[in-house]
């Protein structure tokens, strides 16, 4: 039991203040156990604070420590409950920043609870004065802990089987304008986009139940549109009915109504909170419902490299919490997204097992232990002319969402949808035939457009549009700019 050296001595527990590293939170010889939760923080210590002490402080404040020695530690197996900072590395190219590796015993966490996990790991410590800034870069979740979570209620495999759609990215669009349409007009956009060839349409994150459109009105008209589109195409279609609301009772009421109407999918926003997300995941599992998560709000803490929580960590938490879809970046669209970082997020969501991959920002090997895969969603400023780049960067298990790129089409919404679908199918066909889509992509699209007037019009309208800005959130091991 415990470390026999200094820890148990009366000296160690004399009232007063000790350095965190002296309290046992810095243990450079510690070998993490297979069952430990491991967190990697980027720390920016204040002037004069050495990195090991700063790492020890983070370990202490995210586990058992308070600012002073307490004798009541001696009533516990405190050595076990202390998180251990065991490694500190300088960040390449950033002189005042360090990567601190911290291991946490599994007993520190309640099974199956993201709220509990995060209350420790990001609870108090981000406001801690000896640090200028702190960022949670990555986590290793041990299999023993993974197994306490239900994970995605549906998963990529079952979603595809239910929808009967294989071998290509799914296509979606967010109804625009996102605010102001009446239920009847809103349903028109859904119908046109689905009959034109999309698989899904989507409520936007802030469409809930406003004066211009009550939620029931939206649900009824959207389901009329979905069913009509199914009948004219012979395909299963869906509309993400956003059930986000002020209370769990309201959300359950809306989700029940969506189920009653025969919707295959509902939607929630990240801002509802981790516990609410887990509750909706359990509801979705009970009701055979695909659960779509919009990551509303995440950029407030994921985007800046020196402070906050990396989106790869959010991706891991959301796979555990149990969502089927999550917005995870486009690389080429209008929103933040370095190619390597985004591929790192996608790998976290979709693979059975992630090897260490520093170029993509993955610091740990992660075994997902059979947990369902999450379908990433690429949404925001993408269009048919980028189809080869999207398929190249994002692969085929992804929902590509063209909102403006569908609804803003000069020939109308259905034509916009058809343009996207034809571009997608032509690109997948060509890739499977062994063609080099990265280089031949524009030619493949042009050839497909010869037999599809809507695609020709889409390429004429948007073919040259790119969002070529340098990314903020890039991996530290390969400096890159966003490719166009």
């Amino acid at each position: 039991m415990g470390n026999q050296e200094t820890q148990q001595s009366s000296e160690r527990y004399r009232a007063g203040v000790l350095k965190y590293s002296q309290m046992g939170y810095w243990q450079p010889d510690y070998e993490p156990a297979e069952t430990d939760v491991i967190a990697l923080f980027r720390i920016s210590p204040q002037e004069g604070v050495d990195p090991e002490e700063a790492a020890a402080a983070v370990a202490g404040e995210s586990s058992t420590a308070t600012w002073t020695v307490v004798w009541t530690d001696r009533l516990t197996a405190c050595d076990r409950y202390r998180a251990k900072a065991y490694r500190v590395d300088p960040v390449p190219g950033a002189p005042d920043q360090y990567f601190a590796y911290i291991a946490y015993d599994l007993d520190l966490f309640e099974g199956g609870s993201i709220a509990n996990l995060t209350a420790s790991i990001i609870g108090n410590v981000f406001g801690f004065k000896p640090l200028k800034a702190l960022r949670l870069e990555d986590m290793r979740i041990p299999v023993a802990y993974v197994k306490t979570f239900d994970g995605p209620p549906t998963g990529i495999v079952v979603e595809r089987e239910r929808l009967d759609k294989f071998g290509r990215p799914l296509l979606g669009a967010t109804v625009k304008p996102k605010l102001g349409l009446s239920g009847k007009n809103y349903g028109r956009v859904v119908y046109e986009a689905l009959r034109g060839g999309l698989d899904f349409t989507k409520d936007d994150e802030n469409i809930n139940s406003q004066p211009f459109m009550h939620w029931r009105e939206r649900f009824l008209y959207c389901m009329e549109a979905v069913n009509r589109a199914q009948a004219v195409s012979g395909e299963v279609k869906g509309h993400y009915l956003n059930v986000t609301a002020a209370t769990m009772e309201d959300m359950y009421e809306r989700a029940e109504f969506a189920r009653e109407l025969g919707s295959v999918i509902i939607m929630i926003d990240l801002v509802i909170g981790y516990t609410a997300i887990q509750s909706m995941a359990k509801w979705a599992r009970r009701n055979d419902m695909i659960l779509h998560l919009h990551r509303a709000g995440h950029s407030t803490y994921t985007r800046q490299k020196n402070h906050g929580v990396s989106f790869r960590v959010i991706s891991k938490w959301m796979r555990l919490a149990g969502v089927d879809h999550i917005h995870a970046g486009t690389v080429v669209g209008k929103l933040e997204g370095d190619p390597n970082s985004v591929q790192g997020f996608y790998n976290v969501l979709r693979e059975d097992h992630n090897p260490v991959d520093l170029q993509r920002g993955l610091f740990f090997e992660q075994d997902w232990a059979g947990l369902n895969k999450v379908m990433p969603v690429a949404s925001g400023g993408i269009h048919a002319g980028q189809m080869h780049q999207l398929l190249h960067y994002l692969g085929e298990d992804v929902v590509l969402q063209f909102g403006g790129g569908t609804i803003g089409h000069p020939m109308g919404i259905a034509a916009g949808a058809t343009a996207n679908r034809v571009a997608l199918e032509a690109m997948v066909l060509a890739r499977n035939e062994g063609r080099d889509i990265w280089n031949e992509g524009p030619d493949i699209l042009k050839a497909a457009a010869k037999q599809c007037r809507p695609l020709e019009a889409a390429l004429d309208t948007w073919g040259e549009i790119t969002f070529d800005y340098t990314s903020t959130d890039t991996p530290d091991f390969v400096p890159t700019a966003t490719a166009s």
Partner: protein
Amino acid sequence: MRITQGTFSYLPDLSREQIAAQINYCLEQGWAVSIEYTDDPHPRNTYWEMFGMPMFDIQDAAGVMVEVDRALSEFPEYYIKVNAFDSTHGWETVRLSFIINRPGEEPGFRLDRLEAEGRTIRYSTHTYAGQNPAGARYGRGETA
């Protein structure tokens, strides 16, 4: 109307060479190719008839094309699709599925509405051709 199930239904009908190229891709991935046909293309008709077993042991596209040709000549007025099945752990499902034949005429679907309480509507989708018995739904329906 043109039923748009399957991976490539928005493209012009695939030529024999294009079908063989896709089958070749599937075999390169280590997937088992199978052929299915139906005269009930309802979007939720999961179980089309199997045209033989999945071809787990056929390694070259030419071998699969022999079966494709046989299916096309036996069921010219049916929907026929090629599936590729991936038995890898974590997938164990179809990875590609595309229609390679369809009836000369596709009358499509009727949508029925049953008005229920609170403006709720119960929807039901029916194939027009499905009013006829199996085997007599499309074209001459010569084969059952």
